[in-house]
């Protein structure tokens, strides 16, 4: 009976019952001998740790290209569509009018996208949960109004006013997040109500005058308008970014190699670093051709890098992604789901406040129209166009930069061409639709290729 191949490895675990002769039928004898439910003989030899069916990527550049092609065909598009779109947009507007690609226009563009881009970073967080925040426009206006009224009308210290504006943003997020996470009201409805309510509060705070002009020398105005004109500033920032990337990649690869787990080959790290360096130095060169490195752009990039780190390298970020992937799974893993939800809405609203302050600095005032218009749609569109999925669980903060660049480029290009808002809205709408279509199609392809 111990020879029975159907019962591997359990000989000797049973001592009782074995010695009784003339016993009843053994369970093995009552096994079905065929069909799906029949026990399957199991190979007793050691199984290799690596699945032989796994497609192993070849080393070197050729393998890199092969992997790239495979990822594309299985729908893992990443940032590729938006980068292509950006190239096309710049090529079209550049050929229509050479001023579009001038250093001056691109420098201005890099400043103008900051407001929307900051808000879009917050939207990325909410989208990662698979939720939406429709109040960001109103919240950005509200916080700009709070800052302006405190600083200009009441003469409060500018730093205190700035802090108050940011804390107000966080508080708004806390209120909305609590209604969503603890009470269970759909985020869509909570933030839609917020969109109206916070806009009303902003009008209330602005009072009868309706517009509060910034002095132009206050901290928020300076954060936006400061441009470091030294050549070294832009190049230094580019160098710092490239070195940071290279250092982190090499450190990671070294640790992985010493731990005996697969690591990125040096050639690939070199390739990525060179690609990053080309983009960074080209941007720095262009900025230096005009006035230099805008502080607003630098702050925007720092926000992106820091929050990207939070999302990908901290427990908190891991929990955000887990919630976007499987709420029940996250809950069972012991993750405090309401806490993550509330904090994500707080991050989103705080980023809306940051964006609102930059937008106020851009027009040098907080007015009744602050945070209105198509700001809300632009910010959400920027996040989606940049490659963050509407379905949750997929995305990165960099999509805020790419998406804001696309939308900013379209606006800037159309303004240069003298096209009306009507045309602008239609084109931006089409781009947004295209982005969502690409997201949906990519998701479908990923499902078919077993990647979603």
């Amino acid at each position, binding site marked *: 009976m111990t020879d029975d191949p*159907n019962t*591997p*490895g*359990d000989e000797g*675990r*049973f001592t*009782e*019952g*074995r010695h*009784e002769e003339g*016993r*009843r039928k*053994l*369970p093995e004898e*009552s*096994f*079905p001998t065929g069909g*799906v*439910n*029949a*026990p*399957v*003989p*199991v190979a007793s030899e*050691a*199984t*290799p*740790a*690596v*699945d032989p069916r*796994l497609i192993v990527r070849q080393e070197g550049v050729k393998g890199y290209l092969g992997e790239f092609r495979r990822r594309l065909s299985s729908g893992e598009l990443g940032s590729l569509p938006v980068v292509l779109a950006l190239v096309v947009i710049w090529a079209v507007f550049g050929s229509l009018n050479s001023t579009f690609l001038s250093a001056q226009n691109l420098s201005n563009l890099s400043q103008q996208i900051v407001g929307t881009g900051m808000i879009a970073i917050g939207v990325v967080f909410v989208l990662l949960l698979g939720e939406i925040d429709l109040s960001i426009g109103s919240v950005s206006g509200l916080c700009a109004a709070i800052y302006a009224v405190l600083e200009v009308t009441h003469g409060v210290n500018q730093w205190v006013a700035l802090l108050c504006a940011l804390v107000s943003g966080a508080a708004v997020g806390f209120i909305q997040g609590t209604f969503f996470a603890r009470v269970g009201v759909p985020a869509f409805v909570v933030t839609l109500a917020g969109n109206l309510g916070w806009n009303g509060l902003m009008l209330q705070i602005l009072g009868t005058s309706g517009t509060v002009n910034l002095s132009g020398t206050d901290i928020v105005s300076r954060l936006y308008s400061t441009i470091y004109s030294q050549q070294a500033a832009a190049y230094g920032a580019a160098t710092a970014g490239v070195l940071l990337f290279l250092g982190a990649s090499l450190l*990671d690869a070294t640790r*992985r190699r010493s*731990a*005996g*787990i*697969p690591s990125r080959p040096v050639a690939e790290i070199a390739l990525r670093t060179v690609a990053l360096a080309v983009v960074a130095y080209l941007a720095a060169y262009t900025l230096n051709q005009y006035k230099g490195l805008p502080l607003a752009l630098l702050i925007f990039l720092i926000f992106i890098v820091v929050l990207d780190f939070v999302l990908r*390298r*901290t*427990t908190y970020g*891991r929990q955000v*992604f*887990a919630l*976007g*992937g*499987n709420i*029940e*799974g*996250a809950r*069972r*893993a*012991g*993750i405090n789901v309401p806490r993550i939800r509330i904090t994500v809405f707080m991050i989103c609203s705080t980023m809306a406040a940051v964006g609102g302050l930059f937008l106020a600095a851009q027009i040098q005032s907080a007015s009744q129209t602050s945070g209105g218009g198509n700001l809300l749609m632009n910010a959400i569109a920027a996040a989606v166009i940049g490659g963050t999925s509407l379905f949750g*669980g*997929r995305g990165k903060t960099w999509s805020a930069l790419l998406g804001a660049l696309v939308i900013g480029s379209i606006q800037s290009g159309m303004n240069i061409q003298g096209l009306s808002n009507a045309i602008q809205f239609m084109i931006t709408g089409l781009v947004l639709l295209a982005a969502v279509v690409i997201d949906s199609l990519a998701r479908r392809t*990923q*499902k078919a290729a*077993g*990647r*979603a």
Partner: protein
Amino acid sequence: MAGQPVLALRGVSKRFGAVQALTHIELEVRAGEVLALVGDNGAGKSTLVKAVAGVNQPDEGVIEWEGRPVTIHRPQDAQQLGIATVYQDLALCDNLDVVANLFLGREIRRFGVLDEVAMEQRSRTLLDTLSIRIPSVRIPIASLSGGQRQVVAIARSLIGSPKVVILDEPTAALGVEQTAQVLDLVERLSGQGLGVILISHNMADVMAVADRIAVLRLGRNNGIFDRRGTSQEEIISAITGATDNAVTRRQARGTEGDQ
């Protein structure tokens, strides 16, 4: 096989409104054994598991852990004791890779930052010791087959070094080869000294790996069988209630006496 049970249920009862889901359940799990928990739909298997896993609290009775009575209020309490539960729906995050799923909620950190290297290393070691074959630990769960997801879910339950693992229908909806892999894994778990509670509808699976088989019927114990001395028919008749044995007789007497 003797020795103190790791986990024991003494007279556990649970009532949902007008339904008596569990009545005076007695159950013991010892280290290194596979205890199969079988029963028809509605027999109380899931309720029993939820009571042990801390999802529901029993109304009556005592849960003993290594000989001392414990109260399990929350799933985290069960995890801290050393009871790991793998539910039927697995609850894996499709968008995260295998390593991230294995360590979800228990991430290893270094200077406050996720230590991906250490987590990947430990994942590989764990999967190797369990002879689990998956294409790569860095691919999202979405790319894995059903059987692979099941073994990843089981492997995940082992990250916290539990002493008892509860598997809820681990072979449901799996193919022949995947079922074999999972059953292999179940044997390896008990071989490593863990107590395994295996819930299954599939008699062939139960007979293949279980040491003892506890039958639940209508929320009551309906016999605990040693697999070696029991035929499949006996188990099935215990499940369906066609059986008549000492346990059921005594229970029947007990309830009559109560009334």
